[in-house]
Every structure is written in C-alpha cells, then in structure tokens.
C-alpha cells in the first residue's frame, strides 16, 4: 500500500511542475461554467419558470455541480498511457514490481485530489460573485448514494480511458485521436456536462442510460439533486457497477493481448 501512497505523493508534486498548464486548464473550466451559468440564467430569468423539471435554483446547482463532479471524474493522468505505449516508455513500468493499472489509478486519484481542491475554491469564489440560488441536499442516504455513484463514475472513466489508450498497441499514432473523439466529444456530451440529459426526448434518454457515459456526470448529479426516484437511483447504481465490471474485464483482456504485441520500441 505504501508503494501507491508514494506514487500518489510523487504524482502530486509532478502536477506542480506545470503550474501554468494547470492554471490554464482550471481557467478553461471556470470560463465554461460562466458561459453555462449565463446561458441558463437567461432561460430561467423568470424565477418561477420550470423547464424539464428544473427551476432556476436546480439548474444553477447543476451547473456548479458539473464543475465539482467533473474535477473528480474527468481529471486523469491516464491520458498519457497512449504516449507511453507508442514511445515505448511503458517498458519502464513493466520492469517494476507494481501493477500498472493500480499505478495509473493512483496517479489519477492524485490528479483528482488536486483538481478537487481547486474546483471547490473556484466554486466558492464564483458563488460569491454570482450569488446563485443553491440547492443543498440534506438527505444523508442520497449523499451516500451520491458518493458511491462518484466512486463508480471514477472507475468507469478510468477503464474507459484505459481502453481508449490501449488502441496505441495496435495503432501507435492513433492514440490521441481516439481519445479526442471518444473522451472529449462523446464523453463530455453524453455525460451531461454541457446540458442535463433529461431535456432530451424519453426515447433518446433510454438509449443514453444504457451507455456508460451518463453515469459519469449526469447520474451522480441527479442523485445529489434528488431528482430521480429511489428505484431509478438503485438501478442506476447497479448499471454503473455492471459497466465497471464489463469495462474492467475488457481492459484486462485487451491489456494482456496488447502486451504480447508490445515491442518496447523507441530505439
């Protein structure tokens, strides 16, 4: 365990080596929140207006919630794996008595911790600037379910990103393109970080809920906001668990296949 604690600490210090990079990344998040905030503010300018089951307070809580949940779920170092594979740097890890998956999960967690600290700070600042109405969940069971859904979201995203990165075993130059397409476009959109997914027609929503993506951002936030029934909360958690298992299985399977192909190139 000590191994991974050490990795956590080293990874944390590493993040600080690129201070400007990090600041820009956070700035991007803040700007995105600004845009969404004013967009929804305008739509809900009349405080009594309800659209798709959201009032002004809930939609703005959603927007802020996205910032926090995104910091926890989407911050990851795992994006570097494709490069590791393509450049052959993977060899360095394979030679060490550590589990590669645990290594990267640990690095992800350190990145998440750092981003969470900043996201909370940013939220507080924005909160005082924009003074939005904020919905505070008080039901301890829902808060527990929210935390559980976050843990599952972290694992789903981890395995999903891992799978995308492993494309580099077969097509070393494609790693980044696949990530961009799948993670940034599909992942961010289908996870509900731009718009809440329940404003889509029911039929479309049904399709979404069968996919792993809504369980990354949208579902945890719905649990927090108490917008969904108990039955739906439970089934959502179960589907999340199923996705963790499915993606985890494939990640392991493809990892073993990939390693056989791996040639530790780069020299």
């Amino acid at each position: 365990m000590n191994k991974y604690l050490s990795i956590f600490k080293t990874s944390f210090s590493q993040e600080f080596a690129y201070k400007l990079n990090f600041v820009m990344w956070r700035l991007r998040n803040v700007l995105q929140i600004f845009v969404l905030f004013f967009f929804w503010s305008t739509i809900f300018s009349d405080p009594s207006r309800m659209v798709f089951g959201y009032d002004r307070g809930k939609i703005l809580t959603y927007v802020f919630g996205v910032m926090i949940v995104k910091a926890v779920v989407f911050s990851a170092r795992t994006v570097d794996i494709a490069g590791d594979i393509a450049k052959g740097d993977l060899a360095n890890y394979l030679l060490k008595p550590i589990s590669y998956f645990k290594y990267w999960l640990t690095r992800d967690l350190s990145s998440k911790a750092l981003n969470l600290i900043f996201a909370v700070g940013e939220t507080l600042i924005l909160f005082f600037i924009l003074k939005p109405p904020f919905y505070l969940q008080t039901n301890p069971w829902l808060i527990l379910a929210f935390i559980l859904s976050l843990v599952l979201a972290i694992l789903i995203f981890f395995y999903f990103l891992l799978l995308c990165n492993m494309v580099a075993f077969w097509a070393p130059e494609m790693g980044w393109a696949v990530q961009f397409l799948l993670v940034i476009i599909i992942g961010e959109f289908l996870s509900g970080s731009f718009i809440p997914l329940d404003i889509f027609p029911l039929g479309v929503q049904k399709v979404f809920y069968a996919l792993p993506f809504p369980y990354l951002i949208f579902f945890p936030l719905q649990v927090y906001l108490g917008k969904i029934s108990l039955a739906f909360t439970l089934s959502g958690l179960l589907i999340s668990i199923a996705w963790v298992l499915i993606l985890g299985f494939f990640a392991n399977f493809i990892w073993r296949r990939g390693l056989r192909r791996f040639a530790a190139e780069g020299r």
Partner: protein
Amino acid sequence: MDRAIVVDHLVRDFVVTEKESGLKGTFSSIFSPKKKAVHALKSISFSIQPGELVGFIGPNGAGKTTTMKSLSGLLYPTAGFVQVLGFDPWDRKNEFLKQIAFVMGQKSQLWWDLPAIDTFELNKAIYEIPDRQYEETLNELTDLLDAKKYLNIQVRRLSLGQRMRVELIAALLHKPKILFLDEPTIGLDVVAQARMRDFIYDYNRKYEATILLTSHDMDDLVNLARRVIVINEGKIIFDGLLDELTNRFAKEKIIKATLSDEKNIADIEKIGKVKKLAFPEVILTVPRSAVALAASELLQNFPVEDLTIEEESIEDIIRRVFKGEGVKTKLF
C-alpha cells in the same frame, strides 16, 4: 540454481507494416497494409553463470536489444525457452522484477520534472527497500558515481552524462542480481565513458551481479567483458572469450615501420599489403603465418629505424566477422 540465465532456441518475430512514401503511400497503407514478418531472433541459445559479465556485440538490428528485452520480460517470445533466476520472465512476478534492472542509454525512468531524489524515494517504496538499506546503498552509489551534487536538481536540467549517473543509481537502488545494460555509454564523452566503465566493473565485482551489456563501443567490451556473444541477423555467430575471438578471426598482423630513407620505397609493396605509406612511416598488413618472414625481409632490404608488430584492432576483426568472412565456412 546454478545458471542465472538460460536461453534455449529463442525465437522472436515482429510484424511490421510497410508504407510507401508520400500521401499516396499513406492511403494505400490504410486500405491494404503490407505486412511483413521480421525474424529478429532466429533460435538462439546460450546460458550465463551468476556473476558473469557478458558483452553482446552486433550491428544495429542484430537482435541484441531484443534478446535483453526477452530476458527481462518485456517481450513475449514467439517460440523457445527463457529462464532467468529460475523464473519465466514473461510472468513478471514481483519476486523476479525485484532482482533485475534494465538500463537503456536512450531511455529514462526518471521523472523528468522532478529532482532525481524523488524518483529514488519512489523506487524505494516500489521495491520495498528497508530504510537502512536504502540509505546505505544510496550513499555508496552516489560516492561511486560522484553524483551527490545532481540529486536535487530537476532531471531535465542535467546533462546527458550527469543524467546517466543518476539513472544508474535509480536502477541499482534495489541491488539487482541481474543487470541489463543497453548502450550505457552511448553519447557520453570519453571521460564519462571511462567513469561508467569503471563503475560497471566495480559493481560486477563488488555485488557479484550478473551483467549483460550491449555496446557499439569496442572499448567498453575490451575493458569490461571477458566473454562476448556476437549476434548478427538474429543468430549467434560467436560465444566465448574475447581473446578467443581475436585468435580465431584475426588472420593478419600489422607491421608498423619507420624508415630513414625513401630509397626503393615503391618495392615495399612486395612484402605485404600497404595500408599507409607516408614517409617515414609505413604500415603493412601481412598474413599471420608470414609475419616473421615479412619482418626479416623488411629489415634486410630497407633502412628501418624502428619496427613493431601488432594485432589487428578488435574493430577490424568484428567488422570482418559481421561481413560473414570466414564464419560460415570455418565455424559451422
């Protein structure tokens, strides 16, 4: 366990995709990729005793690095048997990985943005090195490599020579029993090369570590390895003592003479093959068997001031071995 490394009929193939140049080549490689199997290792066998220091010689692409990668568990063998310290490297068991280290001259395991000491601390945790042992080994290695002043500098700011020193420390903190060194002296200046060599030599002696080394620098091998394995095109063409390699393949001797007079200098061609003729210096190569005769003829017929007889340089011998000269007919 008597042998540290056993390799039996190891085969490794690679599939490479060929692409013709330009945009057109890119498109055709997408739709109908031309795949080609490259046989990097064609059934090689050898074994190494604990504590041996063995040098791998071979031109680029001969299969030296592929062999080392197979031995350290990085590559899945296409066929054949590999055993290192009683383990199958491909299983990558922690007990196995804790006993080996692989240093690549062109690759770094250090965290680029952090000082080397951070990587060391991390390795200490990863290899589960006890505090006391870590302190001792670190001090010893930093002394041996004279690297104390580089430990707290961001790795990206170190020069290549400085980086290689801390790289070695990072790789050796867990006192590996087997050390794979792939071109450890590449790109280093003469002084740094000599330091690296001394270190490898001392390390082998002191810790009785088994060391496998590849290098293009013959000085590395002459100074370090008694036993060499020569690989060419995925096959072992020589495995034995370095001296034996010289004896077997050196077919000529070199006579260097200093003359006092330019008279009849053109006739010198009759004695042997002239490699250099720049009065007063003459360099000739003659067959080993005829060296005594050639030397006496030279002394009798020319105004010789000074004369030495030398062996061919190891580079020349190796170059001939790779060209396949005399190998297939004489050895196999």
